[in-house]
C-alpha cells in the first residue's frame, strides 16, 4: 500500500499515512489537531470531467456559429458557463 507524508500545520510534526486517507481527516499523532488531507487525484478527475463537458458545449457552439445558428451557439455557451459555475460552487 502506498503512503503519503503529512506535516501538521499546527505543531509541524511529520507523519506517514496510508494513501487511502487522501481526501479524508485524521488527528495529528503529536498535538491531536484535526488535519484535512486534500484528494488531489480526485479533484483532477472532477475538474477534468467539468472542463470536458464545457469543451463539448463550446464545440457545439462553434458548430452552430459555423452554420449561422446564433441562438443555439449562445445557448450552448450559456449552458457551458452555467455548468462550470454550478460545479465550481458544488465542488
Amino acid at each position, binding site marked *: 500500500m502506498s503512503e503519503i507524508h503529512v506535516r501538521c500545520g499546527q505543531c509541524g510534526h511529520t507523519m506517514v499515512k496510508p494513501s487511502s486517507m487522501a481526501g*479524508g481527516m485524521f488527528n495529528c499523532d503529536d498535538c491531536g489537531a484535526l488535519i484535512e488531507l486534500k484528494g488531489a487525484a480526485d479533484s483532477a478527475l472532477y475538474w477534468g470531467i467539468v472542463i470536458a463537458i464545457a469543451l463539448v458545449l463550446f464545440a457545439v457552439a462553434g458548430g452552430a456559429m459555423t452554420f449561422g445558428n446564433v441562438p443555439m451557439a449562445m445557448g450552448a455557451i450559456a449552458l457551458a458557463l452555467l455548468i462550470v459555475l454550478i460545479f465550481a460552487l*458544488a465542488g
Partner: protein
Amino acid sequence: MGDAVYDRNEYLLRRKFWSFLGQKFYIYDAREQLVGFVYQKAFKLKEDIRVYRTEAMKEELLIIKARKIIDFSAAYDVVDALNNEKVGALRRKGFTSAFFKDSWEILDNNDDVYGTLEEDSAFLSLVRRHLFALLPQTFTVKSGGLHVATFRQNWNIFIPKLMVSFHGGPEEIDRRIGLAAAVLISAIEGRQG
C-alpha cells in the same frame, strides 16, 4: 465519549417528511426524546452529513464526510465535532453492496478494519434489489467478532425509520461511530432502493 447523547442503548432515526433542500433526519432515544438532528447538505458532490444537537443546528455533534467525490468503495470519516477528534471511518464495500448485500467496514484511525456492518439476509437483500425495493432491511454490526448492534428499518414508505439497538458487552462499539453508521445507512443506502 463523554456527551450524554451517547449514553443510550436505543435510538430511532426518522426521516423528516418534507425537506426542501437536502435530507434531514431526527434522532430520538427510547423515550422518544429528540437527542440529535441530521442534515445532509444538498448540491454537495462530496457527501457531507452533520449531526446536530437540536433542529436549530447550532451545536454540531458529529461530522460525517466522504473522502472522495467519485468512489465505488466510498469511505466516510467520522469526527466528533465537540472536541475535533476523529472517531474512525466507515467504508462501503462497493462490489458486494452493489450486487449482493449492503456491506460496510468500520475502520480505526489508521484505516485498519475492526468491525463490519452487514445486511442480515443475502436472500432478502436479493429480493429487495430485484423484486421489491420497499422490503425493509436489518443490519448487524460486529466488532471484534461480536454482535454489538442491530439496525432495523420499518415498512413505512413515507417516513422511513431506522431502529438502532446497541447491545451491551465488553467489546461495545463507540456509540459515535455506531450512530454515524446508522445515519449513513439511512442517508446513503436509502437512496439505492
